[in-house]
């Protein structure tokens, strides 16, 4: 099995007067684990359905492996889709489920049975071949769905939030499993999710979508370290936000006059003086001042301390909103209260023109 690349060229999708996907260009490399991340209703599933062939774009072209796919139905495309609810056939045994694609291709029964058994062994389901899907646990069903999709030897595997129904432990396990299957098979994976943690742990690259627009396409590291828009900054991981107006610009840095005073950060948007701007700084780069000299400092009220096992989240209240400080849990700050001074370095802060934040 070899993965193929997927290209969306100037693709637009409209349903009546509603535009689900605004003009989009997207290239997904062959053999890549690519995630499309966004809140519900952002158009990510629409893109998935355009790639799988259930719908054709209103404008633009979809290419898989360089071949134009418009007008070609899902049966004829080198793709396989794993549905959110898996859509296993409950009245067939598991091996028959896996073999359905082969049955459709006219493979003889004995042969497709052997192949189905092989694939079920690949996903670690030996001994469950003759059972029906409803006799399996959630994680096992998941694997039947994966085996069923792999049976047709797709070049591109499309996954529509297939992990959302699983509990946390199983989800984490399946992430590793999916990644491993992707590595073993070399198939291009396009993974749809609204869970940024899921996208970050599994993907090579991620496209973040909002309201039908792809906001940013980047590698996992870049996406986290250099978000391009306020939405991406707040949707992918957490960010502390300070709002104000730019008062100075110097050497790629901007100084924003906020209610917490003048804050300096990287002028990413090349904004000009007087622009309304937002400063974003990650909680793990925001520090409680204990003698360390930082570029930006201000005072806030301590609110509460949430323990998250290896980490501890400290919540502070400022005049304009809450600030989170994220630290490794070394048993510190147990007696924190009242006013506290916090700060961060200018090189850890990103200044962007004001925009819409994620409300999640």
């Amino acid at each position: 099995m070899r993965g193929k690349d997927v290209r969306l060229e100037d693709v637009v999708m409209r349903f009546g007067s509603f535009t689900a996907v605004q003009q989009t260009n997207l290239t997904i490399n062959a053999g890549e684990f690519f995630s499309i991340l966004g809140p519900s209703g952002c158009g990510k599933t629409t893109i998935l359905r355009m790639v799988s062939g259930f719908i054709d774009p209103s404008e633009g072209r979809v290419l898989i492996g360089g071949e134009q796919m418009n007008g070609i139905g899902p049966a004829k495309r080198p793709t396989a889709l794993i549905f959110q609810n898996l859509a296993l056939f409950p009245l067939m045994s598991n091996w028959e489920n896996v073999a359905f694609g082969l049955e459709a291709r006219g493979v003889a029964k004995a042969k497709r049975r052997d192949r189905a058994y092989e694939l079920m062994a690949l996903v670690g389901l030996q001994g469950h071949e003759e059972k029906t899907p409803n006799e399996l646990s959630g994680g096992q069903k998941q694997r039947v769905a994966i085996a069923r999709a792999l049976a047709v030897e797709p070049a591109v595997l499309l996954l529509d939030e297939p992990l959302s129904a699983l509990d946390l432990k199983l989800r984490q396990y399946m992430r590793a499993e999916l990644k491993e299957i992707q590595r073993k098979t070399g198939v291009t994976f396009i993974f749809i999710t609204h869970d940024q943690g899921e996208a970050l742990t599994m993907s090579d690259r991620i496209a973040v979508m909002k309201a039908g627009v792809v906001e940013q396409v980047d590698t996992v590291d870049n996406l986290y370290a250099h978000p391009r828009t306020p939405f991406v900054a707040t949707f992918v991981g957490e960010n502390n936000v300070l709002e104000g107006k730019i008062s100075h610009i110097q050497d790629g840095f901007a100084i924003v006059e906020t209610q917490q005073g003048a804050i300096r950060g990287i002028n990413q948007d090349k904004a000009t003086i007087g622009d309304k701007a937002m400063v974003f700084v990650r909680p793990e780069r925001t520090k409680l001042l204990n003698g360390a000299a930082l570029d930006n400092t201000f005072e806030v009220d301590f609110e509460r301390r949430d323990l998250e096992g290896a980490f501890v989240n400290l919540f502070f209240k400022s005049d304009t909103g809450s600030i989170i400080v994220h630290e490794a849990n070394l048993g510190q700050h147990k007696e924190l209260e009242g006013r506290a001074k916090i700060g961060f370095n200018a090189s850890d802060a990103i200044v962007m023109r004001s925009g819409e934040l994620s409300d999640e």
Partner: protein
Amino acid sequence: MNSLIRSYGKGLTGIFVTLTAFWLLLLIILPQAFMLDQSLWSIDKDDQLGMKIDRAYSDLGLLEYDAQQATGDTNPAVQEKIDTLKEEIATLEAQETDPPREYGLQNYTRMSSLHFSIFVKSIFYALAVTVLAFAVCYPVAFTIAKLATPQRAALLMLGLIIPYAINELLRVYAWLMILDYQGVINSLLAWMGVVSFADKTWIPFLEYPGSVFVALIYAYVLFMIFPIYNTVETLDKNQLEAAQDLGGSVFLTHWRVVLPHAKPGIAVGCIMTFMLSVGSYSVPQIMTRGKSGDWFSQLIYRQFFETQNWNVGAAYAFSLVLVCLAFILIMMKVFKVGIRDISK
């Protein structure tokens, strides 16, 4: 029972149970048991009995007149004759009020070969109607359930239901008008110049069993569509898409995914259509107007209301009940569905 009492109290539960028992006993068990009992009596009725009695009475009148006129020694002989005749009349009258009857399966086993062939033919026709109705209804039910937009599905549904607001007889007469010698279709053909009324070259649709089929399918189409629609409707649309995505053809998708899912509905639809059409009286009566052979239901009618032989009629009717029961059991076996699936 206990949970019923807990939720509704003793009074209401009592009413529920009584009503159910009433329904079961009076409306289901009792009539069937009565019918079964009737069907097992075979009464040896002498058709000539009434005439024989009448003749004996007139003979008696004559003899009594003779006896009055006669004198002397002829008297005892006439008197003897009168006595014999009176005895004879008494036996005949006893036979009339309480004819010799036999309890057993004679009414079932003595069905004439003509009646038996009609019986078999009716079952075969009802099966054919069922198969045809399924062939017509499955695509319609699937389209309404899965392919049509919600608004269009509602309209289609309405279109299917509206004709059923009209009496069944009228619907059958409508088909009669369509298929008649000078009906809608033949008029259309005449207008196109294919047939001519003057030369009586019309197509005699009503003389083909097909016309009864058409009317029966039309009469019972809903009983087939609704159960199938109800089960297909519950099929997850993703399963259809999954089958399509995996390359499944339309045939394979229906054969492996939709039909197995719709089995209980298909079984119910087939059972209802079969039972209704095998027992239908008005449709074959109206559509054939006696021009083609009787259906078994018409035969039963004749036994009850023309031959006045209720026992044979009951036996015929009960045979039909047995056939329907057998059909239900076969359908359950074939479709591997239980009573529970069917009652859903």
